[in-house]
């Protein structure tokens, strides 16, 4: 069974090639596009089943594919590595990916670039699956950049608008800044380890990177750079809100469920390096905490539905980073999985909402859609509830609670980080229900005849089911001893190690966080349902308005970069477009011309002058010969 592992990334790749090179009808395009991912999902599921039923030796299966390079000094074998971490990733990626592809067959049906869309999506799936399955950092890097390329292509999918192309470039360039750090990290790791095989590096890390040495923290810091770029964490988060220019299924697949969590995956994959460098790991936690607050406040102030969701994605990935930073590896991956379901759900539902609202994305111009599209309302409500982490019934609650519990009890965590998480949870609850209330309640502002078709309904229904139900595979110990998820992951990742559990404290934390969440929902209900005039009134206050604008602009990161980095650089590029080095050659040219003019004055044209000069020259020459 495991021998078919290579099919998981290969099938979408095959789909991509067929879509690029063959001319197909619309139905055939959908068949190939969705079919390849469906087959890949089935293979992944079968592999997952046998992994659980009869795990391979050491819970790891390695499938070498081909030798990429062998120069004697440097060898890289491209291979796939299946363990519980990568298995979790491929299961989530293929399954959510399949549902999003299914949804897209209906959502993109009217688009002239139908085949192109599915080609890019399949290429993305292939790259993403390569990324998570790779057992070699070079191979991982191929997938890593591949998903970046697909992200570029899909953000700029509707290329005829200049702003889409700009957003696409911004996304690629900013992530590439992180990727450069990542690449340098690869060079460093190769230099010291002599290999780029992930497992060999992890095994040898404690010996080669002694704790406390300079090297021990530079290596993970460079990897962290790549992760921060890809996962849109502070300070490289500015590309993700703009990336919403792409079609909505793209936002769901790439910019919510899968690609942006690649950074989380990378850190979890190379966890040994991070545990060897406590300061870097602490930096991961701090970045997560800061990002989740910045993004949550920004999400709270957006008018555009998709931008609000984008900021909430950044914020949720911040939670995952926070968990990674305190060593709660499996909690981070648990949140990744639940987030993949509910955020994909939210985005896909948002796509339907935007269709229903005639391509209006401003939440303040929607309103009252509850009666018109009840199915979409319910699934969006479920998604928002998960995002807000409504206690006990949603998967988001269990994953977020796990993170907060561990931040509290970890020696690497602490009160301040925990408080950041709790404040974030409060804001998350507020903005989640702000979206629901603004979009579905209040005065109806648009007429719509939109009815979701079967593909959309199936995709949303399945995602809603998993958003609610997925949390029950991993419950807090104090509620029930159901811990499939962490036991499953602990075959690969180290178990969480915190202070001795105290049931009373755990209960107190759990109830406190639940209350905070419910309070958040209450605030949202009060501000956006009972007193819809309240936000406008608040904004009349100068200071409140200033803070609101600051938050809405994403804490001014974009403006700062534009003003102090991008514009000066472009200015430099513009003034130097003629190449300043040319001046050197102009100078040579100018000088030789001058000398030429000077010398040509000696050409008087008078024969007698020439004769006289010749005589003079002869006299001097002979004189010198005689004298010397």
């Amino acid at each position, binding site marked *: 069974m495991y021998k078919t592992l290579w099919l998981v990334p290969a099938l979408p790749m095959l789909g991509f090639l067929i879509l690029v090179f063959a001319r197909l009808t619309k139905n055939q395009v959908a068949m190939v596009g969705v079919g390849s991912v469906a087959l890949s999902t089935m293979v992944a599921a079968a592999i997952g089943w046998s992994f659980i039923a009869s795990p391979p030796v050491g819970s790891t299966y390695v499938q070498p594919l081909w030798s990429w390079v062998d120069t004697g000094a440097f060898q890289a074998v491209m291979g796939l590595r299946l363990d519980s971490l990568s298995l979790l990733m491929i299961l989530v990626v293929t399954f959510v990916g399949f549902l999003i592809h299914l949804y897209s067959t209906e959502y993109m049906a009217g688009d002239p670039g139908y085949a192109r869309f599915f080609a890019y999506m399949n290429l993305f799936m292939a790259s993403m699956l390569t990324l998570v399955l790779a057992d070699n950092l070079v191979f991982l890097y191929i997938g890593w950049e591949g998903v970046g390329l697909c992200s570029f292509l899909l953000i700029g999918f509707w290329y005829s608008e200049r702003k889409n192309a700009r957003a696409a470039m911004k996304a690629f360039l900013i992530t590439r800044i992180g990727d450069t750090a990542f690449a340098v990290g690869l060079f460093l790791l190769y230099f010291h380890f002599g290999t780029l095989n992930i497992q060999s590096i992890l095994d040898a890390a404690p010996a080669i990177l002694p704790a406390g040495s300079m090297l021990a923290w530079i290596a993970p810091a460079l990897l962290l750079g790549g992760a921060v770029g890809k996962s849109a964490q502070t300070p490289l988060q500015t590309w993700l809100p703009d990336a919403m220019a792409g079609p909505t299924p793209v936002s769901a697949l790439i910019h919510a469920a899968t690609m942006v969590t690649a950074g989380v995956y990378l850190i979890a994959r190379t966890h040994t390096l991070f545990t060897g460098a406590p300061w870097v790991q602490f930096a991961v936690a701090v970045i997560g905490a800061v990002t989740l607050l910045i993004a949550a406040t920004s999400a709270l102030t957006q008018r555009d539905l998709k931008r609000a969701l984008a900021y909430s994605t950044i914020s949720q990935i911040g939670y995952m980073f926070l968990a990674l930073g305190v060593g709660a590896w499996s909690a981070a991956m648990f949140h990744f999985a639940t987030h993949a379901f509910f955020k994909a759900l939210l985005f896909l539902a948002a796509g339907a909402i935007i269709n229903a609202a005639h391509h209006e994305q401003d939440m303040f111009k929607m309103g009252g859609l509850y009666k018109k599209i009840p199915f979409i309302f319910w699934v969006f409500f479920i998604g928002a509830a998960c995002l807000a982490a409504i206690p006990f019934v949603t998967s988001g609650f269990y994953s977020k609670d796990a993170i907060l519990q561990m931040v509290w009890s970890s020696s690497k965590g602490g009160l301040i980080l925990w408080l950041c998480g709790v404040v974030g949870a409060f804001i998350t609850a507020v903005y989640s229900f702000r979206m629901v209330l603004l979009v579905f309640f209040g005065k109806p502002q648009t007429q719509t005849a939109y009815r979701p078709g079967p593909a959309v309904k199936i995709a949303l229904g399945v995602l809603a089911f998993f958003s609610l139900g997925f949390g029950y595979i991993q419950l807090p110990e104090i509620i029930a001893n159901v811990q499939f998820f962490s036991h499953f992951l602990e075959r690969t990742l180290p178990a969480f190690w915190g202070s001795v559990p105290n049931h009373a404290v755990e209960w107190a934390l759990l109830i406190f966080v639940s209350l905070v969440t419910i309070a958040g929902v209450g605030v949202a209900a009060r501000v956006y349902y009972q007193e819809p005039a309240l936000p406008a009134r608040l904004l009349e206050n100068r200071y409140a308005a200033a803070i609101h604008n600051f938050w809405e602009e994403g804490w001014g990161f974009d403006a700062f970069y534009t003003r102090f980095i991008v514009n000066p650089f472009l200015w430099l590029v513009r003034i130097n477009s003629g190449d300043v080095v040319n001046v050197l050659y102009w100078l040579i040219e100018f000088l030789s011309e001058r000398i030429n003019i000077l010398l040509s004055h000696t050409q008087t*044209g008078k024969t007698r002058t020439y*004769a006289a000069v010749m*005589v003079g020259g002869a006299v001097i020459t002979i004189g010198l010969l005689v004298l010397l």
Partner: protein
Amino acid sequence: MATVPMEHGLILAATLFALGLVGLLSRRNIIFMLMCVEIMLNAAALAFVTGGARWGHADGQIMIIFILTMAAAEVSVGLALILRLYNSLKTMNSDAVSGMRG
């Protein structure tokens, strides 16, 4: 046969050469300048002959035949050029012929 000392011959050659040179530098008429060049050539030829006689060597006489041939060729080309020049410029003044000035 009394031999003329070499010095005499050389002094004569040098005088002739100086005369030709001064003439070349001071005259403006191209014909005269050409004649002065001829004088200088002959001065050089005389110096060769003198030298040849002094060392008892035929080379000096070979050179004079060479110089004579060359002078003849040079004069024919030079005179042809001067004729063309006079045709087009209507003057014999060498200073007027400065079309190649830089």
